[in-house]
């Protein structure tokens, strides 16, 4: 993944990850028996992917989604917001496997793959330096400016704040470039990851 040197905004997730490489912070994977998927809700119909070579990339609207954002009290919101403000970031240096769930009240960076059947839930951004094939929820406490980026962005389901999209049914072409998903004009869009994108979106 490109180093986002140009961005001096708060979205330091890439840089932060690099900074923390040496620290190798322990993976905080919890089974959390009574914490389910954090609140999420309807159903923004995602738009076409901006990546021109992959017309089929973006999911359609799931048809059974909850009508209301049934927020669960999985976490007290205050500490989460706090952590996000601090750009708290956790580094996971392993493959996240089926049945494993990473929940973190900041950004999550995975150096490895995120397999189908696993979940990454972050209050902030999610960056996967590998293939992201599981369920991912960025901005889980409601941050609509959270992003998900991955070398291979092929999530079973991708959620940002309370927007949900899912992979199209059937086979689809594996992405060839790192991609980033974010909310633009109320819908989740997936684009080829480019340096400086974060800054642009900040201004815009």
């Amino acid at each position: 993944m490109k180093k986002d040197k140009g961005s001096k905004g708060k979205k330091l997730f890439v840089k932060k990850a690099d900074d923390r490489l040496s620290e190798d912070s322990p993976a905080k994977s919890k089974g959390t028996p009574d914490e389910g998927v954090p609140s999420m809700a309807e159903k923004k119909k995602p738009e076409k992917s901006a990546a021109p070579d992959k017309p089929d990339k973006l999911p359609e609207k799931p048809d059974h989604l909850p009508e209301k954002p049934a927020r669960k009290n999985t976490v007290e919101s205050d500490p989460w917001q706090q952590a996000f403000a601090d750009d708290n970031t956790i580094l996971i240096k392993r493959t996240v496997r089926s049945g494993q769930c990473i929940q973190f009240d900041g950004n999550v960076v995975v150096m490895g793959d995120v397999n189908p059947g696993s979940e990454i839930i972050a209050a902030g951004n999610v960056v996967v330096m590998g293939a992201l094939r599981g369920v991912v929820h960025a901005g889980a406490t409601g941050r609509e400016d959270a992003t998900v980026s991955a070398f291979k962005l092929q999530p079973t389901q991708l959620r940002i704040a309370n927007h949900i999209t899912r992979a199209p049914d059937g086979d689809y072409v594996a992405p060839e470039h790192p991609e980033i998903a974010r909310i633009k004009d109320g819908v989740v869009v997936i684009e080829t990851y480019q340096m400086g994108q974060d800054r642009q979106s900040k201004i815009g």
Partner: protein
Amino acid sequence: MGEVIVITSGKGGVGKTTTTANIGTGLAALGHKVVLVDTDIGLRNLDVVLGLENRIVYDIVDVTHGNCRMKQALIKDKRFEGLHLLPAAQTKDKTAVTPDQMRELCDNLKKEFDYVIIDCPAGIEQGFKNAIAGAERAVVVTTPEVSAVRDADRIIGLLEAAELREPKLIINRLRPLMVKRGDMMSIDDIIDILAVDLLGVVPEDELIVVTTNKGEPAVLDGNCRAGQAYRNMARRIAGEDVPLMDLEANDGFVSKLKKLIGFK
């Protein structure tokens, strides 16, 4: 008021999930309202076999813990209006749900559906106890192997102890040629030991693997031999009297089967 049927086996990997997906889809294809409940918490598969994994938001643990309403967790099938899935949770374990919660769940589901079909996990521990808690009928799946039959026998005993009487048997992955050579237990051998009624016999069929990987149940494939077996079983569960096409399977099972489906 619908009926709650648990699909169980004791031994792992004998075809419970395949059976649940196919019989459920078969019943939906007959026009019934069906919900499939995956109780294999921590090792969920049914969603994948049905090609519905990417739609999961809430699961059975969310429902039993009151994190969401039942309606929110039920996933509509892609193909059949009347078919729904209540997925298992993948990041929890069997203790996340109790038999009492399962009983209540099944009671609620059978108010809305004609058939509530429960995919049971392997084993005889808590997952099994959860799966059978709300069931009124049981279907035991076995393969023609001594170990699988032994486990099926154990399960039938446990089912009877839990007042689930007269379970029905499905013999899966039968290979008629091997039976003929005397290298595999025959249907009669198995019934002889288990002494229960047969619901159906499913032949070993490569198409099961193909359709499972595609997330499209074999029961919908008109040319699939195993699919035909599942179609028949669905009709039998719905109360139709469909002859066991393969009961005299010991000789010419495959050719008889082919004739029935319209092959030459």
